[in-house]
């Protein structure tokens, strides 16, 4: 404008070290098993970077970790957790117990308190007493043991569905009977598949493929869950299986 002195500010540039890669993860604990699942779509904004990028990883024969949020941080975090577990194996000649892995993850996340890993972690597996367990974390390491948890882009779609179907929230049991505290494996798998097909239908960042990791307590068998591929190192203790399903690609 004429007459007004022009104020020239130096151009500022900013680097944003984080991004959101979408996707959703979910874990449910049974009495003597645990299921940890995640979709395989990886996106940035409206672009799909790949239709197959795993978010769920086997740590040991009794621990599986699902990582959701910023994929670069997630992959690096899993790499570092695996490295710490290998060191533990070399020092103690055994796998780290699940509750110890949960505490390790807390300290590793809190170590980055002022430059956090931008990820939500869900750890599933078998506890030392043989019970199925799920631990969920926030990005700076606050954690809790639960029966079920969803995280990621479609958390708000999936979690209330799980409240209803796993915790039987807002449902009244028949007179003289109580709701079951733990569900059978087959029922849990059906709930997981329903949760992901629903999330795929209504959320653009969820879809392509579904990976479900099944961790079984020592002595337990799959019992009619066909086509699950075994990935455990030994077959005489806790065992880990993977089940894959297609999800809609649109």
């Amino acid at each position, binding site marked *: 404008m004429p007459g007004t002195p022009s104020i020239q500010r130096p151009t500022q540039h900013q680097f944003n070290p984080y991004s959101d890669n979408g996707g959703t993860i979910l874990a449910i604990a049974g009495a003597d098993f645990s299921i940890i699942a995640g979709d395989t779509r990886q996106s940035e904004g409206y672009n799909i970077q790949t239709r197959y990028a795993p978010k769920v990883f086997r740590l040991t024969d009794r621990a599986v970790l699902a990582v959701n949020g910023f994929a670069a941080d997630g992959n690096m975090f899993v790499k570092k957790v695996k490295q710490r577990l290998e060191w533990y194996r070399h020092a103690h000649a055994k796998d780290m117990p699940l509750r110890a892995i949960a505490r390790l993850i807390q300290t590793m996340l809190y170590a980055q308190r002022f430059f956090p890993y931008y990820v939500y972690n869900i750890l599933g597996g078998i506890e030392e007493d043989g019970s199925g367990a799920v631990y969920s974390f926030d990005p700076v390491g606050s954690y809790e043991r639960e029966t079920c948890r969803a995280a990621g882009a479609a958390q*708000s779609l999936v979690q209330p569905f799980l*409240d209803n179907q796993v915790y039987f929230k*807002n449902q009244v049991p028949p007179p003289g009977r109580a709701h079951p505290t733990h569900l059978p494996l087959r029922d849990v798998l059906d709930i997981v598949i329903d949760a992901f097909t*629903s999330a795929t239908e*209504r959320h653009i960042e969820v879809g392509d493929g579904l990976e479900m990791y099944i961790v079984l307590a020592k002595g337990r068998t799959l019992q009619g869950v066909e086509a699950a591929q075994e990935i455990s190192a030994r077959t005489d203790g806790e065992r880990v299986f993977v089940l894959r399903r297609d999800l809609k690609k649109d």
Partner: protein
Amino acid sequence: MSIMEYNGGSVIAMVGKDCVAIASDLRLGNQALTVATNFEKIFPVTDRIYIGLPGLATDVTTLRERFRYRVNMYTIKESRTIEPSTFAHLVSSTLYERRFGPYFIEPIIAGLERNPATGELSPYIAGADLIGCLNFAKDFVVAGTASDKLFGVAEGLWEPGLEPEDLFETISQTLLNAVDRDAYSGWGAIVHVITKDKVISRTLKGRMD
């Protein structure tokens, strides 16, 4: 601060076999502070059309009166009651009139539509955004502060061809479990199931936290 989340509240409508259901929570808030727990957002339009008005509470009251006025004018001029699809377009044009200074409401319409040729009644639901863009869904429509939660649960629970009592259970479970994960909705609910010969209205107890 989003105007759409200022007072909180959610509405959902579902299609069943020869019936429709519409339900809402009962909370009225001033942001995080709950002010009332008996604030109904669903209103009868005719004896087989209901409209749900989640959004800014002051506009709930205003729009209810505007729709009542416009439906009365239609009834007088046309000497017949309005059909759900006609009413949906009335809602749409009423909202679009305020395209650049909108009412902060996302209406949900549920009713039974009379086929002019056969006289049969068929389920009709519709949703709209705050400037009146209509969404004619075949299954369910949701709106309000718990809309994403409602989408997730409804997608998991709803199935085609539900009878009135089953539809009531489905919409109730969907709403209750969705609003329990939403800080701005809840504190009880009301459900209306519209069938051929009657409307079943039930007030539900919900979590009070």
